[in-house]
């Protein structure tokens, strides 16, 4: 029971009046594109240059909506007397988006970074068969894949960056050591034959 009779009625009127003065929440979708959050799952793009036809995606797919065909090709030996190598060549890669449930397992499981989420979502069709996107269409979706969003502040360095930095640090250290050794050798030479050559004298 409210302290003043009728105050609840007034409150109801106030709520509707206040809502009227506020901005509406209607999304005018076909006229105005929605602002999608980062990592939106719209469609799956295939970066087929990276695909090795390992079939992991097709096997892990819960809906079995990925179709892959391939054949083996023999690559001649790279060097004289070497062994011939065989290589998988992709013939067909298709995703049936009428079956896909957008779980993203194929993207997670791909060891070669050949599958990506794209935020594009406007690919409705009037015929369900059209929803099976073949490799060229999947390749086209790659152009719509956004750059990965920035890491959170204070996040751990990405592994590949860390590895690259480690290698670069090692190389730099080796070069520095080499340079130091060379400088030392040059200095020893300088003390031996003063003024004959410049500081460049130590170079081999």
């Amino acid at each position, binding site marked *: 029971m409210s302290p003043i009779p009728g105050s609840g009625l007034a409150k109801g009127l106030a709520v509707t009046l206040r809502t009227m003065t506020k901005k*509406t929440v209607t999304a005018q979708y076909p006229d105005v594109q929605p602002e999608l959050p980062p990592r939106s799952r719209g469609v799956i793009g295939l970066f087929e240059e990276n695909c090795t036809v390992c079939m992991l995606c097709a096997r892990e797919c819960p809906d079995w909506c990925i179709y892959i065909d391939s054949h083996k090709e023999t690559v001649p030996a790279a060097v004289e007397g070497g062994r011939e190598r065989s290589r998988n060549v992709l013939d067909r890669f298709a995703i049936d988006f009428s079956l896909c449930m957008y779980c993203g397992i194929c993207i997670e499981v791909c060891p070669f970074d050949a599958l990506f989420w794209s935020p594009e979502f406007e690919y409705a069709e009037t015929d369900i068969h059209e929803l099976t996107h073949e490799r060229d269409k999947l390749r086209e979706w790659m152009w719509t894949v956004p750059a990965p969003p920035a890491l959170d502040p204070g996040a751990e360095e990405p592994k590949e960056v860390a590895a690259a930095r480690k290698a670069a640090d090692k190389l730099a250290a080796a070069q520095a050591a080499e340079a130091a050794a060379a400088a030392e050798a040059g200095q020893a030479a300088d003390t031996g034959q003063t003024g004959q050559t410049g500081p460049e004298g130590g170079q081999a």
Partner: protein
Amino acid sequence: MNDALDVAIRLVVVFAVFMVLPLVIGQTEHKVMAHMQGRLGPMYAGGFHGWAQLVADGVKFAQKEDVVPAAADRRIFQLAPAVALLPYLLVLVAVPIGPSEGAVGQVVDAGIFFVLAVMGVGVLGSLMAGWASANKFSLLGGLRTAAQLLAYELPMLLAAASVAMAAGTVSLPGILNAFHWWWLPWQIVGALVFFIAGLAELQRPPFDMPVADSEIIFGAYTEYTGLRFALFLLAEYAGIVVLCGLTTVLFLGGWHGPFGADGLGWVWTLLKTAVLAFVVIWLRVSYPRLREDQLQKLAWTTLIPLALAQIALTGIVKVAIS
């Protein structure tokens, strides 16, 4: 000859008002209701913010098949929308919007009687529709309409009687001529009772038990399609115009205003009517539907005693100042 022309012009003007204002209120309702719910409302029809939405709706209704159920009382069923709509047109003829002779369709000496009696006829349309449809939901709606009409006609009449007592006349322009600004606080209770009872008579939410779509489909209008259904909807909005106009004339001083009383009086009338129409929409958005017993309780235990108290107050003040 001149008289005939005069009458013709008046009728055409009243008819134009009758066709335009309900649509304006309907469109306002679309938009106001949408924004009160955080939506945009119609945005496409007509290009600019969906201004032609109701025109488009009218075209749609006109295209639909006019179905009469096989078991229905054919003649009555077809007549009902006209009975619901036309009384409001007749009432509009008698509502003065300005002080001059030309600003009212026809001066009726017994204005209040005429207006309230004819408005009551409008509800008969729903009753006829409910009975003639041969549908149990329609019948339930019709019965609820009848109960509501009985309950709310009384407080409405009593509140109007209070104003008539105060003015000493039952003519609508006569009441306005006698109006003083201090009538506003004096008759405020009567005004509220009149307005609420009028809302109930129009079956507007929160008093829309007779058409409660979640309980009895659409009450008396369940079996209607096409243009006849559109006429019932139009009657509801015409009813809003008439109710707001009458409340303005009887209680809010019609053409009287702080300034511009001569010449621009009709602007005041329209402005007050528009504000009241906004309140009607506002109430619809804000409040849930009353239950049937709550509806009856409100009329018999609250509105009628209030209206009687208003009449007593009017009588006392009237005797005191004379």
